[in-house]
Each structure stands twice: as structure tokens, then as C-alpha cells.
């Protein structure tokens, strides 16, 4: 069994991270009735003997003494981290896992990346090493951050770089919250594009998330509950947005619902690595199957169902609905529509009481309406995990490597260029040591190249339509 370490950077990163730890505990508590420290728990938690301070009874046998999150909390202002340390989850983190400062990054990528990066480099490396040493077999680093600010974006990508240098064998999965068009941070396009270059070059997989989409999902759920359309009551703890049953019982903060969605994304992503199933899907398999070319590692994700009704007997029609929903525009975590763009690859991670025949039936059903790139016509990766999420009998996480992400990048580039052409706010960046104009031009060039790669693939999709008949006869030899 392998371990993963979560590195949460900046305000957004830490808020989402906090929700992640809370829900992870809830998930394990639901499964682990005997209080034994088992392998599943060890993937994200250490078992610490509070008296000696060292690691407590090993895996399999020992009772749980005190669980410590395998996490590093980084923020250049203290507000969010302090709140976590005073909140109900305080015992999960120890002071050696934190790196904080007081003044923040002023929404400036250069401050986060160059200034604080340089300043805290050694401290970060040291703490990462410590966390890694506590792991028997470290497989993956999860970075959680936002792209639009200064710390999450700048320092977060600095850490990403660092991870590649110091732990080249360990996977780097990044959950990035992209700014929306109406973002009130004026410099967010700069920060995002500068961060994109780092993601292009140093991340193994990126899971982009947009606040707008999270917001829409939250609204959708609220509408459904309030409209009374649902025949029976909704199971509260099944909501993908809910914290019910977790440690945090205080009034939920406004972003909590949205952050819970992202936390659930990470839980579902790692479920097959932690729990048993008839067809396991580990994190290294996700990277292997969904990244056909090194730079095209951006995965559009969707989670279904968003809630479960209290009625436990789910007919298979509902099950099929779950699969259909996963491909609908409203369930995606970014503003994109994969159904009408080109798939390079698609992964379906199913949890709970679902069997291989259900999977096959739905793939057969949905395949005709989806467009796959010519060299990967049957590009499906599937996983079956027996343990469902809390409150559900089954669930589905769909990860798509799809050209529908291109518009997001194009818009980002446009917003960037709008500012850059006027050289607006540039001096704030250039006055930082190590920051030059070339950083900007290189970053936008990297983004342009990425967009171009997606363009080239999209062209093949159009060709495919026009040459459908030809393709059939040419490939006819190889179709079964």
C-alpha cells in the first residue's frame, strides 16, 4: 500500500484541504469500525503515539492512537491556517507541518514564487523530507491551490518545481482552482498564466476546477432540495457538498459547500488505491492511461450522483442515469462540455455496488454519442472499487482528457493579453528579484503552444467527420 502527501498552499488551498481532511476522516470512520489502524488509513494518515511522539503501532495490528494527516500547510498569511489549528481538526496537524508568514503575497505570483520561494526553500524541503520519511512507500504528492492569487499560485508552483527536483520518482497531482471571468483580483490572469507554465512543465496530472461550476452545482442541489421535487427526502450526508457527519459541526462557511465538492473529487480519485475492488485503479494507472503525450495532462472531472435519496433500493435505471450525468455539462467541475469536443482518453472510476456488466452496458450505450480521437477509439480506462462513499450505494468519477478544456485556456490567454498589452501592473512583478519580462513572454508562449497542441487534435476531429466513410473502409481491416 502506498502513501500520499497533501500539500495545501494559500488560502484556497488550505480551505479546500481542510475540507478534504474532514471528509477523509468521515469516510474512514464509516468503513473502519474497529478502530484498527489499517492500510487504507495509512495512505493519508500517520498513527502517532502521543506519549513518545513517534509513530505508534504499525499497520494491521495496532489500535488507532492519534491520527496525523500526511500534510504540509503553507500560507503566507496566518488567518486561514490559524483557524484550522484552532478548529476541531487541530489535533490532526502538528506544528512541524506548517509554514506561515504574516504579510501575504499581495496577489502577486512573483512574490509567492520568487520572493517567498527563495526565502522558504530550505524549510519547505526539510519538512517535505520529514513527511516523506514517515512514509513506507510514498507514491504521490497532491498539491491543492488556486491559480489566481499570489501564494497558492506562485509559492504553490514553486513547491511543484521543488517536488520534481527533490522527489523525481513521486507523482505530482495538482488540483488547481482557476479564476472565473469576473474574478475580483485584477492580476489573476497574470498569476494564472505564469502558474500554467509551471503546471505544463512539472505536473504529472492537473485537475482544473472552476468556481463557477462549483457554484452552479451547489445551486442545483439547493434548488432540488427546496423545490420539493424529490419524492422522498434526501440523505443529508450524501450530498456531494455536505459536511454532515464530519468533525466540523459549526455553521458552514459560504465556500464550504463548494470546497466539499473538490474534497470529494480527491477522495474518489484515491478510493481504488485505498480500498479493495474487483478492478483496482491506482494513481499511477491514472497517469499512465490518461496522459498520451507529456504536456496534455489536464483532466476534466465530473462527480455523480450529487445526492442520494433515502430510498435505498436503486433500480438499474437510476444507475444508468448516473453514467449519463457524468457526461453532462452541468456535472463537470469546469465550464466545459466534453460531449461536444474530442476525447483523447476517458477514465471511469466506479464505487460501490456496481459490476462489470453495468459498466460495459453503459459504455456501449454512451460511446456512439462521444467523439474519440482516431488512434484511441476505445480509449476507456475503468476501475471498480467496492467501497462506496458515505451516504451512497454507488458513485462515479469520470476523468476526461478532452479538448473541451481549450476554451478555458484561450480565455485565460485573452485576459492575460488584455493586461499585458497595456503593461498594466507589470511593475509590481518586475520589481521582484529574479523576475523579468521574459518570464511573461515565456509563460504566454508556453500557453500558446499548449493551445496549439489541442488545436491540432481538434482538426483531426473535423477531418474525421468529413472522412467518415473513408475511415470506415480504411480501418475496416481492424474493426471487429
Amino acid at each position, binding site marked *: 500500500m*502506498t502513501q500520499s502527501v497533501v500539500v495545501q498552499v494559500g488560502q484556497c488551498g488550505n480551505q479546500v484541504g481542510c475540507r478534504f481532511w474532514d471528509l477523509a476522516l468521515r469516510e474512514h470512520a464509516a468503513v473502519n469500525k474497529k478502530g484498527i489502524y489499517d492500510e487504507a488509513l495509512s495512505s493519508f494518515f500517520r498513527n502517532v503515539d502521543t506519549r513518545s511522539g513517534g509513530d505508534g503501532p504499525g499497520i494491521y495490528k495496532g489500535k488507532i492512537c492519534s491520527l496525523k494527516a500526511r500534510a504540509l500547510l503553507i500560507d503566507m498569511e496566518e488567518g486561514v491556517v490559524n483557524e484550522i489549528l484552532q478548529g476541531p481538526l487541530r489535533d490532526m496537524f502538528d506544528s512541524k507541518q506548517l509554514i506561515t508568514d504574516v504579510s501575504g503575497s499581495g496577489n502577486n505570483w512573483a512574490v509567492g514564487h520568487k520572493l517567498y520561494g527563495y526565502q522558504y526553500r530550505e524549510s519547505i524541503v526539510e519538512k517535505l523530507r520529514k513527511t516523506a520519511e514517515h512514509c*513506507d512507500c510514498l507514491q504521490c504528492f497532491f498539491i491543492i491551490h488556486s491559480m489566481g492569487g499570489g501564494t497558492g499560485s506562485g509559492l504553490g508552483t514553486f513547491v511543484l518545481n521543488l517536488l520534481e527536483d527533490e522527489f523525481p520518482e513521486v507523482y505530482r497531482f495538482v488540483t488547481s482552482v482557476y479564476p472565473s471571468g469576473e474574478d475580483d483580483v485584477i492580476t489573476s490572469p497574470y498569476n494564472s498564466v505564469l502558474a500554467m507554465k509551471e503546471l505544463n512543465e512539472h505536473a504529472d496530472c492537473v485537475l482544473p476546477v472552476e468556481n463557477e461550476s462549483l457554484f452552479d452545482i451547489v445551486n442545483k442541489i439547493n434548488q432540488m432540495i427546496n423545490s420539493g421535487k424529490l419524492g422522498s427526502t434526501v440523505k443529508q450526508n450524501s450530498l456531494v457538498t455536505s459536511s454532515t457527519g464530519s468533525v466540523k459541526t459549526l455553521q458552514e462557511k459560504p465556500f464550504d459547500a463548494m470546497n466539499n465538492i473538490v474534497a470529494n473529487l480527491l477522495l474518489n480519485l484515491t478510493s481504488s488505491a485505498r480500498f479493495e475492488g474487483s478492478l483496482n485503479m491506482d494513481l499511477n494507472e491514472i497517469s499512465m492511461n490518461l496522459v498520451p503525450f507529456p504536456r496534455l495532462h489536464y483532466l476534466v472531472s465530473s462527480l455523480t450522483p450529487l445526492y442520494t435519496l433515502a430510498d435505498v433500493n436503486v433500480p438499474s435505471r437510476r444507475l444508468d442515469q448516473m453514467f449519463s450525468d457524468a457526461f453532462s455539462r452541468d456535472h463537470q467541475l469546469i465550464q466545459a462540455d466534453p460531449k461536444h469536443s474530442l476525447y483523447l482518453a476517458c477514465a471511469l472510476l466506479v464505487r460501490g455496488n456496481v459490476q462489470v456488466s453495468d459498466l460495459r452496458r453503459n459504455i456501449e450505450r454512451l460511446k456512439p454519442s462521444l467523439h474519440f480521437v482516431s*488512434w484511441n477509439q476505445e480509449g476507456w480506462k475503468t476501475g471498480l472499487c467496492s467501497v462506496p462513499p458515505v451516504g451512497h450505494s454507488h458513485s462515479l468519477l469520470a476523468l476526461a482528457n478532452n479538448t473541451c478544456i481549450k476554451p478555458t485556456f484561450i480565455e485565460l490567454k485573452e485576459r492575460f493579453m488584455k493586461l499585458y498589452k497595456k503593461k498594466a501592473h507589470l511593475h509590481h512583478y518586475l520589481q521582484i528579484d529574479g523576475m523579468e519580462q521574459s518570464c511573461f513572454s515565456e509563460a504566454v508562449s508556453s500557453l500558446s503552444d499548449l493551445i496549439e497542441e489541442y488545436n491540432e487534435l481538434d482538426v483531426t476531429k473535423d477531418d474525421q467527420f468529413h472522412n467518415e466513410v473513408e475511415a470506415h473502409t480504411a480501418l475496416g481491416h481492424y474493426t*471487429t
Partner: protein
Amino acid sequence: MSIVTVQLGQCGNQIGHEVFCCLCSDICGSHGLCSKKENQSYQDACKERFFWEEQSGVPVARAVLVDMEPKVISQTLSMAARSGCWKYNNQSHFCQKQGSGNNWANGYSVHGPRHKESIMDLVQREAERCDRLGGFFTIMSMAGGTGSGLGAFVTQCLRDAFPASFILNHVIWPYGTGEVIVQNYNSVLTLSHLYRSSDALLVHENDVIHKICAQLMNIKQISFRDVNQVIAHQLGSVFQPVHPAEGGSNYSRNPLGDLMEALVPHPEFKMLGLRNIPQIPENSLPYSTFSWPGLIKHLRQMLIANAQMEEGIDWQVRPPPPGSSTPSSHSTKKPLHFNTSIANLVILRGKDVHSVDLGSFQDPSLYTSWLKPQDAFNAWRTPRAFNKYEKSASLVSNSQFLLKPLDSVVGKAWNMFASKAYIHQYTKFGIEEEDFLDSFTTLEQVISSYTTL
């Protein structure tokens, strides 16, 4: 003689477990519809072949479990132990923590060399525990990373360490529409490497077994467990003790050797397909009867028409008229869709086996002209019924059964290779484009050989 089973990867271990369950329940359960003496002889032969006994009397499977991550093996070990009928040896497993990530190169070039000593050590111990070693049976899937990549490496090591032993690889062909996106790459690399070290490849296709579960077994929500149980039943029908062709009263003592002798006359032709009938839901068994002539007729037509199961057989397909079969594939006289065989083996189990007429399988028009029909066809029988089936007939065939699936997999892999997609994932671990090209060449040769039968 005993067979040592090597279970590789998630698929290999899950299937292996079902196989031993099936073998055990077959010998422990029903009386077998034969004399007590016959039954006893059968049980003893099976036990010697697949199990050894520990002091408590519980049979211990002669198996080595290998996986690069621990979850499946620990599940497999505990399920076996819980059954009470048999178990695995607690020392005979090897696992790591991280898995192979569906990456053949990782399994073959990294995990293989790294863990060779530990794995071969376990195999050696199992081999030494056998009074007489009859060979190795490996179970693996082609689609993933461990079963396929590490499996190919281990097979090579087995060949090097035991040059005189028989090696039979049981290979699971993945579903056509994707379980793993890079499954075609992994399959091509696996098959080409196995072809060099293995004596024969016995193939089961997930799509075919799935159909059997759906249409013949009437299972509504098919799980991998269901699929694996059908596969285990089919394997059991081949490997449980039988009387060899000479009609001796003793059970065959060299199952793998006999199999190879019967089916693999030429090293270029190693792909074996397996068909077993009847296959019906367990609760229908007490109410069904079958006749041997009917079963034989169906089985023969399944062979000729390349039918995957007992339903939907194409009865229009006929063997070519005598005197028209030429070795060349350019022969236009050969009917389309006709499945030419190199060699066939039919195994009959149950009531009245010795009275069954198998002349229809000796028809020379079914075969290539290399072997005399009496050498191309073999039949093994036992009056002892298998797994509650009053009558059971299996066909292991070295024929064009697998030509189409092979061609399809190679085609898809080539299509993907042409765009260079995912190649960086393999070169990362030391498998270069030339290795891919070599594998394609090897398999194109195999396809060509089977096509021109």
C-alpha cells in the same frame, strides 16, 4: 506429477483463487457418478497434481502468488483460508506496494529484474515440494502492467531456470472496448515475449466469457467473480484428471506434457483456444439432460464455424470438400469463415463416455495436411463427472480460433503506435520504439502463419 501455478497480478490472482476453489469443490463435493474406486483414484490424482497436504490435513495449493501491490493477494489468501476446504501456503506470495501502473515496461524492465530472485526463490521451493514436477501453469492478463509485463519476465526466468519443464501460459484477453487504454500495447508486448519462452498460450477472452454469463448462465448483473468462475470451470474441465488416449485405467500423470504433445507440433503455432459445453445456470443442472451425440455435434460445429459459445452457432459453415484443401491460403476453394485446425483435443467427462463416437473430429478436411488425422486429433475421457455436470465436453484447439482477435489487437496497437501516443510512458522505463517494432514483427509473423493454414 504436479503442476506449480504462478498467479500474476490482480487478474491472475483472482482467477487462480477461483480455479483452486473449483478443483476443490469438484473433488470434495459430489460423488462423481462413478464407482468409489474410480472416484478415489480421481481425487488422489487431483490432489497430487495441485495440492500438498499439511499436518492438519487441509490441502495447500501448489501456487505462488505474485503482485506488485498488496490488496488483492491479502484478499485472496484470506478468502481461501476462510473456505475451510483448502488454503494457500502463507509463505508462497510476493508483493510490493506500488503496483505497475498498467505499464508493461514497468512490470518487465523494472519490477522483473528487481524482484527476480525473490520470486524465483518461491517458485523453486514449490517446485522442490513436488515429487515430480510436471511443469508450470501461469495465469495472467495481457492488459495491465504486472500480469503482462512482470508475467512475461517471469515466464522467461522459468524457461531459463527449468529448461526441461513445460510452461503453459493462461492468458486473459481483455474486453475489446477498453478496460485499460494502453491494453493493446501491453498485449502486443506480452504476446511477442511469451511466444519466445512459453510452450503454449491458452487464451480466454473476457468478451466471450461475458456473453456466456449473460446468455447461457442467465446472470443479470455480471461481476468479475462470475466471469472468473466460468473461466475456472473451463480450466478445471481440462486439468482435472483424465485417462489418456490409450485407454489405460490409470489417470494421466503428465497433463501438461500430454497437452503439448497433442496440440503443439510446431513452435510457430502456440495459440490454444478453449471451448466447454454445456454451460448452464447451476440451479438448472438437476433438471437438464444432455446426449453425447448432441454435445459432440455442437462442439464440432463450434470448432468449424469458430463459434464462441453454444448459442448462435452458424450451421451453414461446412468444411471444404475432400481433395480441395491445399496448404496455400490463396486457395479460393476453401470456404470463408471455416476454421482450419492444426490439432484438436477433446476431453469428455461423465456418464457413458467410453461409448461416445468421435469419428467426426477425425475428418481430415478439418485439418491442415501436415499431420495424419489420427495424430491431429486426440481424445481423453473419464467416467467421473466434473463439477456437477452429468456430461461435460471440452475442446482445446490449436486452430484459427484466435486469428481474428489477434489481428484486431495488433491493428489497434499499430494504429495508436503510428501516432506515438503514450510511447513516452514506456520509454521512461526502458522500452524503446524498436522493442515495439520487434514485437509487431513477431506477431505479424504469427498472424501470417495462422492465416495461411
